[in-house]
C-alpha cells in the first residue's frame, strides 16, 4: 500500500531553447541608505518567466531576453517595491544598478505578490535580522554545503541546540538551550506535526532529509501568534517552495560506514513477518498455536551490507502566466548504520558505607539497522491576483526500519550469583529483530488576502497524521553460565539454555486537525507604524496505541528440565499466554487533546525602536482512556487554561545592528502516556508508570540579544537568557512493584535555566569561519531516594535532564567561485550532559564531553553537475556515559562516508 504512494511519476519535460540574438540585463542591487548589497533580492521581468536573485555582492544577471519592452520588478523583504520600464534590443547588454529604500511598513509581512527568497544564506540572515522574535535560521544553501544529510544533523550545529539520540541512533530529538525535547515543539511549514511515537509527542528529526528543506528555523522566543507550548524553542522545518522559474535538481550518492568495514551487519528475513498478531487475525478469544509464530525473523545472518544510497529529485515551475507555482520533490535514502555498545548497569552498593552505585551488570550490544526513508513533498500556490494567494503543501515522510540487536548481559551481582572472578557469571543473551513502518503526513491549505490598504487576512487548515506499525518485534532469550573452580583452575561454560521468546505487535496513530485565522491591521502616523493582529487557533488531536504481546516458552524436556537452544528452526515452544495481551495491555490507550487559542498582538515601530507585545490564551482539554485492571483509573481528563503574555523590544543601534530584549510566557504539556497510570506487571527490572496528577509545565522566559549583520551573509550574535520553570517534569523513583523498580514522571517545584549564546559567521576572501558557543546553567530541585535511609526522600539540586553545560560548533569554510569549489570542516564539542537520573541522591548518568569532526566538499564539474562528498564522525567519537565511578555505556558508531553527484537545471 504504502509503497504505491511513493511511485511518484517523473515529470517529462522538454525545453525548447531558442538560441538567438537575445539581450542580457545585469547590475547590482544595494540598499539606498547603507550602500550594502542586497543579496537574495529577486529581480524579475514581468512578462517573462525569468527571474534572478542577487548574489552576496548584490550582482544579478538575467540573460536570454527576447528583444522588447518590459517592466522590471524587484521584491525584497523589508524594502519598498521597485518597478522600471526597460527596452532591450537584440544582443544588448543592459546594465541596471538599483537602489532600494527600506520600507518599514512592509517588514516581515506576507507579500502576496512576490516570493521571498528563502534558501540562501543572505536570506537566512535577513530573516533573522528582520524577524519579530529571536531566531536562528539555517538556509538550504548552508545545509547543502554541510556534511549533514538529515534535519537532526543540521540542528546540532545551530547555536544552543543539541541532539538527543536513542541507542542505535535511529531517533533524534532536539534539545534547545538545555531543555529536553518535551519542552520544545516541532513544526512542518509552521504547523505542529502529529507524532509517530507510541508514548510521547515527539517527532524524530532524523526522518527529515535535509535536501527537501528550504530552511530550518529555530525560534527561541515566542510571539503571541505562535503555539505556546515551547519553553526551549520551536523547530520549524520549512520545506521547499515553488521557484520563480523552472528548477530541476537531482542528487544521487553512495556511501559506506566504517562500522561495517570492521564488522558484519546482522540481517534477518522479513519475508515471513506477519503484519497482524494472532488475535488481530483471528479475533479475540483465539487460542494461539505454536505454529502461528514465524521463525525466519529470528534467524540472524551476518552479511556484508550493500552501500548506503541516497537519491533525490525536485522539479519546480510556474504555469498559467506565473499564477500557478508547483514544486514536487522526492528524497529516497537507503541507509545502513549501527552501533556497538558496552556498558555497565549499576545499583547501590550496600557494602559501601556511602551506598554509592557499583556495577551489577555488564552488557555488550551490537545493533545493525537499515533505514529506508522515502519522502515526498508537493507544493502548489495559486496567485489569484495581486491581493490573494492560496497555497497547498503536502509533506509525506515514510520511514522503514529493520533492526537486529544482539545483547549479551552478564550479571555481576544478584540474579543467580553474579560474577566470582573476571570472566565468569551468568550471561543472558537477547537477540531481537524489529521492523517498523512509519508514515507522517502533513497537509496544509493556506490563504493570504489583502483586504484593503489597512487589512490583511490569512488562514490555514491543516491535517497531520502519523501512523506506525511494528509487526512482530521478536526477541529470543537464552542463557549460559561461566564458572570458575579455583581448586582446578578451570573455567566451565554451560550450554546455552532456551529461556523465552517474546513477540510484540503494535501500532499507533496520531491524528490532528487544525485551523487558524488571523487578521492584521496596519497603519502609520508620520514615522510611527502600528500593526495590530488578532487571531484564533484550534487543534483537535486523537490518538490510539495498540499493543499485543505473546510469550513463547520452551517445551521442557521429558524429565521436566529446561532445554538447550540449538537453532530457531528446531526450537520447540508452547504459547504461554495463548490469548495474547491485546485485550489488556498497559500500552493500549486512546488519548485526545483539544487546544483552542486566541491572541491579540501589537507591533509599534518607531524609526529605531520596535515594541512588540501581546497576549495569548491557550485552553487545553486532554485525556485518555486505557484498558487495564478495573481497580485503576480507566479515564482521566484534564482541563487547563494558560494566559501567555509576551513583550519584546528591538532597538536598531544602526543599520546593521539590533539590540533585542524579550519576555514571553510559555508552557509544555506532558507526554500523553505520562499521564496513564498503568501498573506494570511485577516482573524484574525497571518499569515506568504514568502519573495522572502530573501538571503541565509553565515558564517565564527572558532574553537579551545583540545582533550584528556586517554583510549579507555574515553575522555576529551574542545573547543571554533566563528561564524560570514551574512544575518541570523529571523522572524519579516511584516505588517497587514486586521486585521491579518503578520510575514515574513527577513535577519538581521549580527549575531555573540560564545561559549565554554566541554565534558568528565571517569571511576573509575565500576563507570563512562560522561557529557558535552556548553556555548553559540549569538547576532543578529533584526528588530522590536518600541513599543512606532509603525510606526517606531528599531534594537534590542538579542540572536538568538533557542539559549540556558547554556546546561549541566551529566550521572552517572555504569557497572558491572561480574553481567552483566549496569545502567545510565542521567540529563540534559537547560538554558534560545529564542523560539520566539515578534514583538515589548523589549520582546521575552523565554523558562525558565529546568532540566530533565532519567534512564536506563540493566541486562543480560542469554547468549542471556538481560532485560532492560528506564525511561524518571522522574522529570515531564514542558516546560515553558515566555513573558514579564507572562507565555506564560506551557507544561506538564509527565514521560514515558519502560521495555523490548533484544535477541542477
Amino acid at each position: 500500500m504504502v509503497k504505491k504512494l511513493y511511485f511518484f511519476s517523473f515529470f517529462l519535460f522538454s525545453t525548447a531553447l531558442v538560441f538567438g540574438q537575445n539581450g542580457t540585463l545585469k547590475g547590482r542591487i544595494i540598499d539606498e541608505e547603507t550602500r550594502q548589497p542586497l543579496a537574495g533580492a529577486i529581480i524579475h521581468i514581468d512578462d517573462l518567466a525569468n527571474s534572478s536573485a542577487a548574489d552576496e555582492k548584490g550582482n544579478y544577471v538575467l540573460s536570454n531576453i527576447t528583444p522588447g519592452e518590459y517592466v522590471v520588478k524587484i521584491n525584497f523583504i523589508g524594502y519598498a517595491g521597485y518597478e522600471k520600464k526597460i527596452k532591450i534590443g537584440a544582443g544588448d547588454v543592459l546594465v541596471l544598478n538599483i537602489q532600494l529604500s527600506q520600507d518599514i511598513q512592509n517588514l516581515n509581512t506576507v507579500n502576496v505578490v512576490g516570493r521571498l527568497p528563502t534558501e540562501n544564506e543572505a536570506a537566512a540572515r535577513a530573516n533573522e535580522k528582520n524577524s519579530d522574535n529571536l531566531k536562528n535560521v539555517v538556509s538550504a544553501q548552508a545545509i547543502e554545503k554541510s556534511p549533514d544529510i538529515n534535519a537532526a544533523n543540521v540542528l546540532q550545529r545551530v547555536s544552543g541546540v543539541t541532539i538527543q539520540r536513542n541507542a542505535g541512533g535511529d531517533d533524534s530529538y532536539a534539545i534547545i538551550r538545555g531543555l529536553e525535547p518535551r519542552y520544545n515543539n516541532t513544526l512542518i511549514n509552521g504547523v505542529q506535526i502529529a507524532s509517530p511515537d507510541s508514548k510521547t509527542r515527539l517527532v524524530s528529526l532524523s526522518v527529515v532529509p535535509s535536501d527537501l528543506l528550504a530552511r530550518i528555523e529555530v525560534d527561541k522566543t515566542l510571539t503571541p501568534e505562535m503555539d505556546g507550548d515551547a519553553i526551549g524553542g520551536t523547530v520549524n522545518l520549512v520545506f521547499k517552495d515553488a521557484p520563480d522559474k523552472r528548477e530541476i535538481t537531482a542528487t544521487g550518492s553512495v556511501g559506506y560506514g566504517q562500522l561495517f568495514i570492521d564488522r558484519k551487519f546482522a540481517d534477518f528475513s522479513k519475508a515471513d513477518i506477519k503484519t497482524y498478531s494472532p488475535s488481530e487475525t483471528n479475533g479475540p478469544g483465539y487460542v494461539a498455536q505454536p505454529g502461528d509464530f514465524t521463525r525466519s525473523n529470528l534467524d540472524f545472518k551476518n552479511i556484508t551490507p550493500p552501500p548506503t544510497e541516497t537519491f533525490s529529485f525536485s522539479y519546480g515551475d510556474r504555469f498559467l502566466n506565473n499564477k500557478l507555482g508547483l514544486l514536487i520533490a522526492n528524497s529516497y535514502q537507503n541507509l545502513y548504520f549501527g552501533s556497538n555498545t558496552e556498558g555497565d548497569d549499576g545499583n547501590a552498593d550496600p557494602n559501601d558505607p556511602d551506598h554509592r552505585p557499583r556495577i551489577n551488570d555488564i552488557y555488550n550490544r551490537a545493533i545493525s539497522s537499515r533505514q529506508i526513508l522515502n519522502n515526498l513533498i508537493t507544493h502548489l500556490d495559486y496567485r489569484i491576483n495581486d491581493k490573494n494567494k492560496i497555497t497547498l503543501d503536502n509533506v509525506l515522510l515514510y520511514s522503514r526500519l529493520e533492526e537486529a540487536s544482539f545483547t549479551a548481559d552478564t550479571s555481576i551481582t544478584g540474579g543467580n550469583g553474579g560474577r566470582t572472578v573476571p570472566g565468569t557469571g551468568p550471561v543472558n543473551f537477547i537477540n531481537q529483530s524489529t521492523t517498523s513502518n512509519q508514515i507522517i503526513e502533513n497537509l496544509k491549505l493556506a490563504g493570504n488576502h489583502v483586504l484593503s490598504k489597512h487589512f490583511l487576512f490569512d488562514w490555514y487548515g491543516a491535517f497531520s497524521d502519523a501512523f506506525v506499525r511494528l509487526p512482530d518485534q521478536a526477541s529470543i532469550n537464552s542463557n549460559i553460565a561461566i564458572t570458575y573452580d579455583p581448586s582446578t583452575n578451570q573455567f566451565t561454560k554451560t550450554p546455552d539454555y532456551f529461556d523465552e521468546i517474546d513477540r510484540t505487535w503494535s501500532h499507533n496513530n496520531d491524528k490532528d486537525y487544525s485551523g487558524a485565522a488571523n487578521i492584521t491591521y496596519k497603519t502609520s502616523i508620520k514615522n510611527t507604524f502600528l500593526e495590530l493582529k488578532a487571531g484564533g487557533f484550534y487543534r483537535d488531536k486523537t490518538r490510539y496505541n495498540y499493543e499485543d504481546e505473546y510469550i513463547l516458552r520452551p517445551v521442557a524436556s521429558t524429565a521436566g528440565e529446561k532445554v538447550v537452544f540449538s537453532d530457531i528452526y528446531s526450537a520447540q515452544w508452547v504459547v504461554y499466554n495463548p490469548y495474547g495481551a491485546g485485550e489488556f495491555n498497559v500500552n493500549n490507550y486512546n488519548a485526545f487533546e483539544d487546544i483552542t487559542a486566541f491572541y491579540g498582538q501589537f507591533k509599534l515601530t518607531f524609526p529605531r525602536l520596535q515594541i512588540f507585545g501581546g497576549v495569548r490564551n491557550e485552553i487545553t482539554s486532554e485525556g485518555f482512556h486505557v484498558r487495564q485492571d478495573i481497580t485503576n483509573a480507566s479515564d482521566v481528563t484534564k482541563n487547563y487554561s494558560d494566559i501567555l503574555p509576551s513583550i519584546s523590544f528591538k532597538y536598531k543601534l544602526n543599520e546593521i545592528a539590533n539590540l533585542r530584549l524579550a519576555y514571553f510566557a510559555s508552557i509544555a504539556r506532558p507526554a500523553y502516556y505520562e499521564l496513564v497510570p498503568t501498573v506494570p506487571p511485577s516482573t524484574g527490572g525497571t518499569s515506568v508508570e504514568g502519573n495522572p496528577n502530573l501538571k503541565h509545565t509553565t515558564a517565564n522566559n527572558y532574553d537579551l540579544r545583540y545582533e550584528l549583520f556586517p554583510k549579507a551573509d555574515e553575522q555576529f550574535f551574542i545573547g543571554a537568557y533566563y528561564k524560570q520553570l514551574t512544575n518541570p517534569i523529571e523522572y524519579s523513583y516511584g516505588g517497587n512493584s514486586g521486585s521491579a523498580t518503578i520510575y514515574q514522571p513527577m513535577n519538581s517545584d521549580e527549575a531555573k535555566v540560564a545561559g549565554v549564546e554566541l554565534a558568528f559567521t565571517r569571511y576573509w576572501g575565500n576563507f570563512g569561519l562560522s561557529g557558535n558557543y552556548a553556555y548553559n546553567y540549569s538547576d532543578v530541585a529533584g526528588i530522590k531516594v536518600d541513599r543512606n535511609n532509603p525510606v526517606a526522600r531528599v531534594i537534590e539540586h542538579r542540572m536538568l535532564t538533557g542539559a549540556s553545560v558547554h556546546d561549541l560548533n566551529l566550521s572552517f569554510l572555504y569557497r572558491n567561485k572561480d574553481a567552483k569549489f566549496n569545502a567545510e570542516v565542521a567540529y563540534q564539542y559537547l560538554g558534560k550532559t545529564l542523560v539520566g537520573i539515578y534514583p538515589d541522591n548523589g549520582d546521575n548518568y552523565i554523558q562525558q564531553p565529546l568532540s566530533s569532526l565532519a567534512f564536506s566538499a563540493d566541486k562543480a564539474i560542469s554547468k549542471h553537475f556538481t560532485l560532492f562528498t560528506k564525511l561524518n564522525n571522522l574522529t570515531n567519537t564514542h558516546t560515553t556515559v558515566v555513573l558514579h565511578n564507572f562507565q555506564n555505556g560506551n557507544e561506538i558508531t564509527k565514521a560514515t562516508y558519502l560521495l555523490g553527484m548533484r544535477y541542477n537545471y
Partner: protein
Amino acid sequence: MKTKQISFWIAAIALVATMASCAKKETTGITKPVIPPSHPINSDTIGSFEKGTLLAGKTYTMNHDVYVNIGDTLLAQAGTTIIVKNNSQFKIQGVFQSMGTQASPVTFDSDTHTPGTWGGFACDSAQAVTIQWTKILNTGGPDATGGTRRTLVVSKPIKVDIEDSWVENGQDDGLGLFGGAQITVLRNTIQSGGSTDGEAINIKTGTTGTVAYNVIFSQAGTGIKLETAKVVTTAPTNVDVYNNTMVSCGWRRGAAEPGRGVSAGVSAKGNVFNNIIVNCYHGLEIFVDDGAGNVNYGNNLFYSTADTFVDNTPLNATPPGAAITVNLRAGYYPAGALGVPQASDIISTSVATGNPMFKTFDGSFLNPNGAANNNDFHLQAGSPAIGKGNPTYNADMGAYTSDGKGNKH
C-alpha cells in the same frame, strides 16, 4: 521482711484451700451466643469486588478476578473450598485471611487441577495477609499481559503470616516476599513448583522475619533465596532460616542457573541453621556479592543419594553437546562462593554417610513441574539430624523435630 511476706502468703493460700474444700460444689452454665460471621458471602460464585466471610464448609466457584479493596477484609473460614476458573486471580489491597484448621483446611484450586491454571494471590499492596492450614494448588497462569505470576506476592512493609499451609504445582516463585514485608513463614509444604524457573520462597528488598519448619520439595529453582536489592537501595533483607527440609530442588532450570537449597546474595543478612538439604543441585550458596559476615550459618545437613547426577539435556541439542556430570557433594558449598563447611554441619561424604534417614524417600533428583510427592520426610529414629541442631533454634535439624514444634503435615 521477705521471709515474713512469703509466710503470710502461704498462710493465706492454705486458708483459701481449706475454705474451698469445705464449700458446696457450685455449677456454672454459660450460654454462648451464636455470633454470625461478618458479611457472610452466601452466593455460590465469587468474582469482582468481594469482602466478608467465605463460609465454613461451603464450595465457591470463582469466575473472575476477585478484588479486595483497601479497608476491606476477605476471610475464608475453615473448610472452605474455592474453585477458580478462567485463570482468575485474587488481587488484595485490603486484608486477606484464610483461617483453615488441621481438621478442616481451606482449599484454593483451579477447576482443571492442572499446574498453571490460575493466578494466585497478588497481595502487592495488601494491608495484611494471614494464611493458615490452606492448600493453594496449581497457580501460575500468565497475567493478561503474558507476565508470569507467583503463587503469592507481597511488595509492601506489611505483616505476612503463612503457617501450616501447602503451596503446590505453581509455575514461578511460590512465595515472593518483597518490599520490607515482616514475615512469619512456618511449617508449610511447598512442592513441585516452578515450570523451569522460580524459587519456592523468594525474599528480597528489605524483608525481615522467620522462615522455619518448612518442607520444600522439587522446586525448579532455589528453595529459599535471600537477596537485598538489585536496583535500588533498601534496608538489608534479614531473615532467620532454620529447620527447613529442602529436597530435590534446583534441577529444572538447567546448568546455567542451578538452584540451591538456600542462597543468600547482594548483602542479604540472615541466620541459616538446622536445615536439611538433600539431592539439591547446590546446597547452601553464599554468593560473593553477599559479602562475608552477613549470614551466620551452621548445623545444616547436606546429603545426596548418589555421588553424581548426569544431566543429558545437552545431548538433545543440534549438534549434540556433552552430558553434564554434576558432582553433588562438591555442590553443598559450591566453589567460588563464600560459604564454607562448618564444624557443626553434617556433610555427607558418600552415599553411606550423613543420611538423614527420612521415613520414605524415592531418591529422586529431577522431577517435572507438578510431580507428585509420595515421600515422607519425617526422620526415622536414629537419624543423625536428631539432637544435632543449634539449640538456639531447635535441638534437632529439619522440619520435623522431636519436640513437636515442627511441621505438622
